[in-house]
Structures are given as C-alpha cells and as structure tokens.
C-alpha cells in the first residue's frame, strides 16, 4: 500500500517540479542558516562559519539533485530532459540533421517496403474465420512443373473421407459473360463454389443471403447467384434493388440472392471475382454436362480447414492415402501427387509459390545490408559530430557528469534521429509502394483487389528497426567520445585523440563500401538477367503484336458457327489498313493457364508410365507463319486440315525427340491417352518457351483449331507500325461488327502481356527494380560515407597539410595524405565486397532461372563504378586542401 502510494506520489512529483524545487531550496537554506548560526555561536567569524557550514553539509546542488532523484522518477525525468536536449541540439545543426535523417530514412524505407511486401504475401491472414488453419489441397504432376486443382468428384471424396479436415470447400475460378439488365455485358471472371463456401469461411452477407444448408446440392437445380462487392459497387452503382433481380451468366438467368461484404473479396488471395455461383450450376452454365462427374479434371481449387490440433503433415499423409486410392480406381495412368499446403504459403498462385519464400529472404538480406550501410554512414556522421563536441563532453565530465549519463544522452540523440528517420522512411516507402503497385498493375482481364488493408506490422517493424539502428549508430561514437583521459582530451581540443578514431572510422567506411558493392552487384545481376531474358529466344516474334480475346463458348456459339466467325475475323483483320498479318490461337504463351494433353507412349493405352504430358495450342492455318515460329521440317497447318480430314499436328523438337529419338518424325503418328484417332505429325517446329521464361525445353504441339475446336480464342494481329495498340480501336470495331453482343477482352500488346505476366518478366522486373533501387541507394550512401570521412580527416589534418605546403611539398604528396585516409579503406572494402557478392550470386542463381551469375564483366563494371565514385569522394576534399593558403591552414585550429 505504502509502495503504491509512493509511486503515485513520485508520478505526481513529475508534474509539480517547480513547486517542489522551491520548497527544497527553502528548506535547505534554512538548514544552512541554522548551521551558520550555530557556528557563529561557537565563536567563528561569519565567513568561517559560512564556509564550515557548507563543508559540513556537503555540496548544496548535489544535495538538491539527490533530493530530486529521491522524490521523482529520475530515469523518466532525465529521459525527457535528454530528448528535449537532443531536439534542441539537432535543431542547432539542421544540415547534419537533414543528412543523417535522410540517410537513415533511405535505408529504412527499403526495409519498410520489403517488410510490407513480405507481410502482405506471407503473413497477413485472409479476412476469414480460421484463416490460420486454412490449407490448400493441390495436385502436382511429376512430369509437369505446375500444380493443379481437383476434379469435383474427387473433392467430394476428400470432403467425406478425411477426418483431419473440419470442412472442405471447392471453387472453380473461370471466365463468364455477365450481364444485368440495363448495364452493358462484361466478359469477366466468377467463382463457381461449393455450397459451404461462405459458411465455412464465416463470411456474412452485406445484404440478402448466402447459400442455405441443403441448397445447391443437386445439379442445375438452383439458379441463384451472389454478387461480389466490387462488381456490385462499381458496375451496378451499389443498388440494393438488384437482390431478387436476374443476372445473366453465359446466357442463363440466375436470381441474385445476396451481396458479399466489402471486406471479403475471395478466398483466393487478392482475387475479386465478380459473382459467386453454385458449382452445381456449372454443367448448365458452361454447357459441360460431365464436369461434376469427370475424374480427369483439375478444374476445382480445394481449400480445407484443419481440425484443431492437426498438423499440415498429418493432413498431407491422410490426403495422399486417399489420393492414391482415387488414382488407382479412376486414373491408373496419372502421375499426380496430392498434398496439403498452408494457404499463406500458396500465394500469390500455388504454381509459382515455391520461389517466393526464397526470393523474400534474399530481398530481406539485401534490405538489411542497405540498412547497415546507412547505419554506418550515420555512425560516421555522429562520429564527426562527437569529435567536434569533444570539448563540450570533456567539460561536462569535469563538472561531474557520469559517463553512463553522457552515453545515455548521446544515445538519446541518435534514437531521436532514428525515430525521425523512421517516420520519413515510412513516407518514402509509401511512395515506393505506389510505384510498385503501378509496376505490377495487371493488364489482364482477371479482376483483382490489391491488398490495401492497413497493416501495423511493417510500421512496428520499421520503428523497431529504426530504434535499433539508432542504438547501433549512436553506441560506438558515444563510447568513443566519452572514453579516454580527461585531461589529455581537454588539452588536445577538437583535433585530439585523432589517430584511433580515424582508424575506427576507416573501418566503418570499409564495411560500408563492402556492403554497397554487394547490394549494387545483386541489383546489377537482376538487371542483367532481365536484359538477357528480354533477348531470350521465345520461339516466336513478340514485337508489334496486338491481341484481342473472345469466348464464343460462353456466348453459346456452336462449333460450326464458331469456326466461321473466327475465319471471318482473321480475314477481315488481315484486310485492315496497317495490318501485316492476322491469326487465331486458343491460348497465349506465358499465360496463367496452358492447355495440356496426355500422349500415349506405348502401343496400348493404359500403363501409368506410358504417357507424356505435353502442352498444346490450337491454332488457325496462318498462326505459325504469322507469329514467326520456325518450321524445321515438314509443312505447316493449312486450310485443308479440317474436321473431315485426318487429324494432324506440328510438334516441337523436344516432342519429336522424346517420341522418335533419332528418327524422322514426319509422317509418324501418336495417340491421346484418352483415345481417339491417331494424329499424324506433319511438321517440326523449333523449340520455344511456352509457359515460364526459365523452363527447360518441354514437349509441345500445335493442332489445327478446325480439328480440335476451342471457342475461347485470341486474335493475334501484327501491325506494320511500331505501336500495335494503334490498331486496338479498329480491331474492337471489327469484332463488334461480327457480333455486337460478344464481349471482347484482354486487348493488349504481346509486349505488355509479357511484361506483366507473373510467368513472364514480372518477377524479374520487380527484382531488378527493387535490387536496382537498393543498389543505387547503397552506392549513394557509400559515396556520402567516403566523402564524409575524407573531408573530416582533412579538416583535422589542415595544419599538417599547411606545414607540408609551406615546406614545399608537392601536390602529389598532399594528395597521398588525403588518399590514405579515404582511398585505402574504400579499396579494401571494394575487394571484400566483390568477394562477398560472388558468394551471394551463387545463392541468387536459383532465382535467376539458372543463369550463370558469376559474370566477370558485370563485377568489373561494379568495381570500376565504385572505384570511380570513391576517387571522386576523395578528390573533392583534396582539391579544397590544395587550394588552401598555407598561412590559413597553419592558423587553423
């Protein structure tokens, strides 16, 4: 009780400082006077009485200080005092403050950006119930580098049979033509979901209702739909009256029963489907009667909620057991492995998620290096400052300030700097975030919703890092400044104790240069691989290509009508002014899906190992020629290859080698695993890249779209002018003239598509931008550091230089002095940095798609650049030193 009372009293004392100070002044004065009186009574002279009284009682000010400490919370009080003092001091030298804050802020902003990205991709849970125990059930084909989904009937089996899951949902994310009366139709994407989708995720509707228990169980029985929030708000003007109204999906009216809430866009990270329809409606909506029964489909993405206490690996074991059983029963030929993966580890797409943790780790390390560089810089600055303040510090120590107290004060100063830098850094990284979002802006038709929820994690991380950084940068100069012999320090003045300090600062510069070389080198690596990949042979010519997609299936076109339409489209496009060539294909290279087929290898279809998974594209006769795919042998697809004639294919080199090693493939034929007529090889195309830039050669085949029809098709138009987008309006108009109700989507150039595709250049572009920016910042910081050290060491050696010049020293001698203090540590650091970057480059190899990272020219370039910059940083102060009048230099203190 008394203890508590005392704490309150102490806190109260913080606020009654003045009053309490007067009181103690008065009391002690009284005490002193009483003592003097007594001394006088004892027969001393008044002066002597005064003196003795003071001696007897000890120092008045110290006594007061002890009194203050006793009554209040001395730590907090002096902390406030230190902070006030620091801010005052920093305001006295705005130049120093600005440079220090900016330097640290640059380092911190890199950090905050990276933390923000990592947090958004890996750490932030989806806004759904039980987000932490949400897992993805995926299939991985051993002969294909991609992960895929499940068949609906498989999903049903998993849902029923796996007790490790408390619930399992399935969704099929696919394109649809959407229209609401009174609004123009959209070709967009929707999710066909299992009935428990919303209830399992614990999402409640913004308005209306979601699926009821027992509803949406029977095929094609429940023509209802739920609208996504973004679609409802942006396309339908947030009209609540839409509930109960029909929405037309691929020509089939469904009744809108509910609207999803704003905070929930999808269980798929960053996706924003326009509407949710029952998966049981897909046979009708997509005219695909067997989709719910077929076992050889990977259409559905399956997510499950782990029962509490069940680990991912336990669930994986259970899933694999059932997966094997299902495969034995229904797909004896399948080479797929089923496993379970935490939802957070499967972003942004399960198929590319393997690279991400590694990439994140690399960038986090780079961010730390940049941060260290800026810390070293600020430490250097603080150091120069501490040197200039040596006198002040010595005086304060002489006056009785304890060393710990002085160190604390210097540390507070750097902490104040760090917090300021943290704030500036966050603002900077906000800007970087906008830039990054701009860069990754998708040109695809898939509706996305970038994760813009305010996140405390990067904020806290940045603040912690900035305070740590402050401690780090403040500690060494503080320890240094307060150490050493007091008397000697006071005698020597500002230029004293120079040698040792100089050595320490040189070490800082050394480390700094080494780290910036490292960061710069990795930035250069990314840029180089970007350049190298942009000149990679893709297997086709990507320049001046405009693309526009249509989905005739969704529009209800039959095969014959569809083929006729596509043919007219190509013919009319070819006739457009400014068009070099036009062609049709079902899929695009580097798109988020690729059509794959299983080729039977053995004489008889059946055995598991006897299939080859290949990628295919369905193309019109002009495609290969128009795209610039080189034919190595045989002929191309012609108009004569149609439905009634023998099925044919143009295969690539890898395909030919796998099936008929060292034989002429022309005239040979192969079969699909699923059966059907044999397909004759009529031509061999040169290998290209089909889905991933870094992929190893994969078997691929081009089939005539007239024989293997697809209503989902993309018109490729090669322009005569440099900018193919100039043709966009004409192409849209052309398609509209063929069918005014047919939505056209993904109108963009091939270059745009490659740049923004997650399978194309996007990862490299982001990598190059991040690492490149980090490298530039690091270089800038290193220049500042070298310059700062050289300049201040010259300031200290001014007298020295003056004497030398007065004695007739040559310029070169003076330069030698300067160079020794700046150039030497820079050179050592440079060498160290190059060695370190070799090590890092080996690590980066995995990220850079197997590119050999030990590129000598690039490292040489980095070496020369940093050397030049270090020379410049030395030359500027050296020139100033040389221009100095010897007399001024001599008088300089």
């Amino acid at each position, binding site marked *: 009780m*008394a203890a508590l009372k005392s704490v309150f*009293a102490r806190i109260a004392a913080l606020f009654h400082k003045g009053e309490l100070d007067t009181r103690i002044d008065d009391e002690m004065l009284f005490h002193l006077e009483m003592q003097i009186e007594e001394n006088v009574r004892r027969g001393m002279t008044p002066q002597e009485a005064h003196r003795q009284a003071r001696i007897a009682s*000890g*120092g008045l000010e110290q006594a007061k200080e002890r*009194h203050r400490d*006793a*009554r209040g919370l001395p730590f907090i009080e002096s902390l406030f005092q230190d902070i006030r003092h620091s801010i005052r001091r920093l305001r006295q030298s705005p130049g120093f403050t600005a440079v220090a804050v900016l330097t640290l802020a640059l380092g911190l902003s890199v950090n905050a950006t990276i933390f923000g990205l990592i947090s958004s991709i890996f750490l932030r849970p989806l806004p759904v119930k039980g987000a932490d125990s949400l897992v993805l059930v995926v299939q991985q084909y051993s002969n294909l580098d991609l992960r895929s989904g499940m068949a609906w009937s498989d999903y049903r089996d998993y849902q029923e049979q796996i007790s490790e899951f408390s619930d399992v949902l399935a969704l099929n994310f696919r394109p649809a033509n959407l229209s609401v009366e009174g609004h123009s139709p959209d070709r967009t994407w929707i999710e066909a979901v299992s009935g428990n989708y919303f209830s399992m995720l614990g999402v409640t509707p913004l308005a209306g209702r979601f699926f009821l228990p027992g509803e949406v169980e029977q095929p094609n029985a429940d023509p209802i739909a739920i609208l996504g929030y973004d679609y409802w708000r942006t396309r339908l003007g947030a009209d609540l009256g839409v509930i109960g109204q029909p929405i037309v999906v691929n020509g089939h009216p469904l009744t809108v029963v509910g609207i999803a809430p704003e905070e929930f866009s999808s269980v798929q990270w960053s996706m924003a489907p326009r509407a949710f329809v029952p998966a049981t409606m897909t046979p009708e909506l997509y005219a695909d009667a067997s989709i719910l029964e077929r076992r050889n489909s990977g259409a559905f993405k399956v997510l499950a909620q782990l029962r509490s206490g069940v680990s991912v690996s336990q669930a994986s074991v259970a899933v694999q057991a059932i997966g094997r059983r299902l495969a034995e029963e229904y797909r004896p030929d399948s080479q797929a492995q089923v496993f379970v993966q935490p939802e957070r580890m499967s972003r942004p797409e399960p198929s590319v998620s393997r690279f991400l943790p590694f990439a994140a780790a690399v960038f986090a390390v780079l961010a730390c290096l940049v941060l260290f560089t800026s810390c070293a810089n600020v430490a250097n600055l603080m150091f120069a400052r501490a040197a200039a303040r040596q006198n002040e510090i010595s005086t304060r120590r002489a006056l009785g300030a304890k060393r710990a107290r002085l160190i604390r004060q210097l540390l507070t100063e750097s902490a104040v700097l760090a917090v300021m830098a943290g704030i500036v850094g966050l603002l900077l990284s906000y800007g970087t975030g906008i830039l990054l979002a701009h860069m990754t802006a998708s040109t695809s038709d898939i509706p996305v919703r970038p994760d813009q929820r305010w996140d405390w994690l990067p904020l806290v991380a940045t603040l912690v890092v900035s305070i740590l950084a402050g401690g780090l940068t403040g500690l060494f100069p503080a320890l240094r400044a307060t150490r050493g012999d007091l008397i000697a320090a006071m005698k020597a003045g500002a230029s004293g104790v120079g040698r040792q300090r100089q050595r320490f600062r040189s070490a800082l510069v050394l480390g700094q240069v080494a780290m910036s070389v490292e960061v710069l080198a990795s930035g250069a690596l990314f840029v180089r691989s970007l350049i190298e990949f942009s000149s990679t042979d893709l297997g086709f010519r990507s320049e001046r290509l405009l693309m526009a997609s249509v989905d005739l299936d969704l529009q209800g076109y039959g095969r014959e009508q569809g083929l006729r339409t596509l043919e007219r489209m190509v013919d009319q496009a070819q006739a457009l002014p400014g068009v070099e060539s036009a062609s049709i294909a079902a899929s695009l290279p580097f798109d988020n899906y690729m059509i794959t087929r299983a080729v039977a290898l053995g004489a008889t279809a059946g055995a598991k190992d006897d299939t080859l998974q290949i990628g295919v594209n369905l193309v019109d006769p002009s495609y290969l020629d128009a795209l610039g795919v080189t034919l190595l042998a045989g002929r191309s697809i012609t108009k004569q290859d149609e439905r009634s004639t023998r099925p044919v294919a143009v295969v690539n080199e890898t395909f030919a080698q796998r099936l008929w090693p060292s034989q002429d493939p022309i005239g040979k034929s192969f079969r699909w695993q699923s059966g059907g007529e044999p397909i004759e090889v009529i031509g061999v195309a040169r290998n290209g890249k089909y889905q991933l830039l870094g992929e190893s050669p994969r078997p691929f085949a081009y089939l005539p779209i007239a024989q293997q029809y697809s209503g989902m098709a993309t018109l490729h138009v090669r322009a005569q002018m440099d900018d193919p987008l100039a043709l966009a309006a004409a192409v849209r108009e052309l398609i509209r003239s063929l069918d005014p109700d047919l939505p056209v989507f993904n109108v963009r150039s091939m270059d745009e598509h490659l740049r923004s595709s997650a399978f194309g250049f996007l990862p490299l572009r982001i990598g190059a931008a991040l690492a490149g920016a980090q490298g530039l910042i690091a270089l800038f910081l290193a220049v500042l550091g070298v310059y700062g050290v050289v300049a201040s060491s010259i300031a200290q050696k001014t007298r020295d230089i003056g004497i030398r010049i007065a004695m007739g020293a040559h310029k070169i001698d003076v330069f030698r002095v300067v160079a020794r203090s700046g150039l030497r540590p820079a050179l050592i650091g440079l060498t160290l940095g190059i060695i370190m970057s070799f090590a890092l480059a080996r690590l980066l190899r995995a990220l850079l798609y197997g590119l050999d990272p030990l590129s000598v020219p690039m490292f040489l370039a980095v070496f020369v650049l940093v050397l030049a910059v270090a020379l410049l940083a030395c030359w500027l102060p050296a020139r100033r030193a040389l221009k100095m009048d010897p007399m001024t230099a001599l008088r300089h203190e």
Partner: protein
Amino acid sequence: MSKDKADVLQGTLNLLVLKTIEDLGPIHGWGIAKRIERVSRDLLDVPYGTLYPSLMKLEQQGWISSEWGVSDNNRRARFYSLTRPGRKQLQREAQNWEQMAAFIARLLQGAQ
C-alpha cells in the same frame, strides 16, 4: 569536524527519523539532525543531502506529514509530524530493530 563520526547505518535512518519525530512532535529538519547528533553524542552525522531526501520519501509513503511553520528564532521552516500509519511503521521498525539487535548481541556473546 571530526573524522571518526560514523555514517548512519543503511536502513536505520528511517527508524531514527521516525522516532525523533514521535518524541519531539512537529519538528523541522535541522532539529531532527541536531537531535540525532546529540543523542548519539556526536557519533552519528546526518548531512542534509541524506536527511531531506529521506524525509521526502517518508512523506511520499504517507508516514509523516509536513507544513510550513515558524522556528524558535523566527525563521520559516517546514515542520514534520508523524501520521497514524507512520506510528504503526515506527512500531514495526522498532520491533525489527530490537529483534535484530538481540540476535546480534546473542551472536556476539556466543562467538566469544
């Protein structure tokens, strides 16, 4: 001043101050210091750098209270008096001290 004066034993200052205030009623800091010196026959020295922080702490703990008054020689001085919890605290501390003293005495006798 003589050098053989002992510093006040750690922890006993509270007891000395509380006891002095109990005995002499409202009394100022100077009076407390003088009283302790006198009773100890100048063996103990209470410098004000020790005395006043201690008084402040006792007051913050609620064991003593203080108010301005006028001293014998017509000066303004702060007078301290014991509160009710202070009286209890004094009893407790006195008891502790006696126990400790008795124990030390026994120990010393046994050691002889």
